[in-house]
């Protein structure tokens, strides 16, 4: 496996997001199992690579140097005879304070955890790539539909008698010519209701277009006929925007 060294030389620190990433790379390159590895085995490669890169990357290298210290400490400890375990513990305590050095077991645990993070990172990157290649569509504003419905809300406390009152007041204020035709045109409200329904058979119409002439009687007749038809659920009134035309259409049964 030592003839894979030239490969290692081509690697720069830039390619790794950190020392754990680099260490993982070295382990994977040697096809070692994290659970089994003797950390000492990859230490030499790690140090060699770090040395080569130090010249150009002093700023990013500090984290990599911390890891180098860790690896050296672990290697040194692995060379000590087992009988001085007590000394080993002592050594660990001494280093624990500045978090520089961890035990080989702890380093393996960190590597395993980091490997998991790396795998998930790759999955996230895949999802990100696919999702970036997709687009949705801007929603259609629902407010116009809401506005229509709000008519009910606006009129919640308005009953018919108040409508009549309002009409009366409006008619008093707006001077409308009394049309003599009206006298002749003694149309009843039921008659007018039938007429309106037939007018609406083909297409919705605006309220204004139902008026033949702006006579007071005509307005009152149409108005009452429309109200009656609404009450009987025969027609629907819609207003697309505030102060816009009132559209009337037949209620579909």
């Amino acid at each position, binding site marked *: 496996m030592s003839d894979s060294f030239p490969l290692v030389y081509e690697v720069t620190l830039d390619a790794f997001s950190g020392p754990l990433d680099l260490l993982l790379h070295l382990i994977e390159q040697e096809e070692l199992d994290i659970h089994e590895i003797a950390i000492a085995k990859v230490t030499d490669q790690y140090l060699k690579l770090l040395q080569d890169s130090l010249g150009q990357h002093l700023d990013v290298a500090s984290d990599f140097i911390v890891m180098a210290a860790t690896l050296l400490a672990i290697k040194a400890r692995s060379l000590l005879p087992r009988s001085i375990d007590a000394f080993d513990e002592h050594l660990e305590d001494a280093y624990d304070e500045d978090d520089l050095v961890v035990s080989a077991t702890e380093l393996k645990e*960190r590597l395993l955890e980091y490997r998991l993070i790396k795998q998930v990172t790759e999955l996230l990157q895949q999802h990100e790539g696919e999702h*970036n290649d997709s687009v*949705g*569509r801007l929603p259609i504003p629902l407010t116009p539909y809401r506005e229509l419905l709000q008519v009910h809300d606006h009129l919640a406390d308005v009953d018919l008698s108040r409508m009549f009152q309002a009409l009366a007041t409006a008619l008093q204020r707006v001077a409308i010519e009394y049309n003599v035709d009206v006298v002749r045109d003694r149309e009843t409200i039921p008659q007018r209701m039938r007429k309106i329904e037939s007018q609406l058979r083909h297409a919705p119409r605006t309220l204004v277009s139902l008026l033949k002439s702006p006579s007071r009687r005509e307005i009152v007749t149409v108005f009452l006929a429309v109200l009656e038809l609404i009450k009987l659920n025969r027609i629907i009134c819609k207003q697309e925007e505030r102060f816009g035309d009132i559209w009337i259409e037949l209620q579909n049964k």
Partner: protein
Amino acid sequence: MDRTSEQVTTVQTTMAGPFHEHLLPYLEGLLFAAGTEGLTDRQIARVFDVSLDDVEPICLHLLAQQKAQGRIFEVRRIADAWQLITLPELFPYLQSLALAPPPSALSQAALETLAIIAYKQPITRLDIENIRGVKSERAIGTLMSRGLICEAGRAQGPGRPFLYETTRDVLDHFGLASMDELQRLFEQSLNQE
């Protein structure tokens, strides 16, 4: 257009009964209108007067129909809302008409940091740095400014450092259905070992 794969037929066997079939065009129409805002299970159940449990099978039924008809946009669940989005095959055409949004891929460092926060949240910067083995201030800054993570109170202990957690915008960024799906990515990776 041959996207009527086996996958579709398996979807169809688990779908809602044919009595919902007449709803599909209307469902697609509402999803069309809702656009990137999407529709939640609750909204769909309410509008069509079906039970909450019926919503997913109905949406999958629509998906199967869309695949069978070779539609180039499909219903997907993203961030707990069903929405219509285009398939990657359309992307080159979108680009040529300048309809594709500017790419917004995160750096490797930011992705890694996000994965750690998703796994361990809430977590302090120091703990993130311990896992990554590198300083992560900048990556955290990027993720914060993109609204993918947020502060979630402070940890006990010296200096009472900030804790970070992911936001729901993560689901939108990666096109994930739900927080559960995000968690499943970890399980998937753990099971690989």
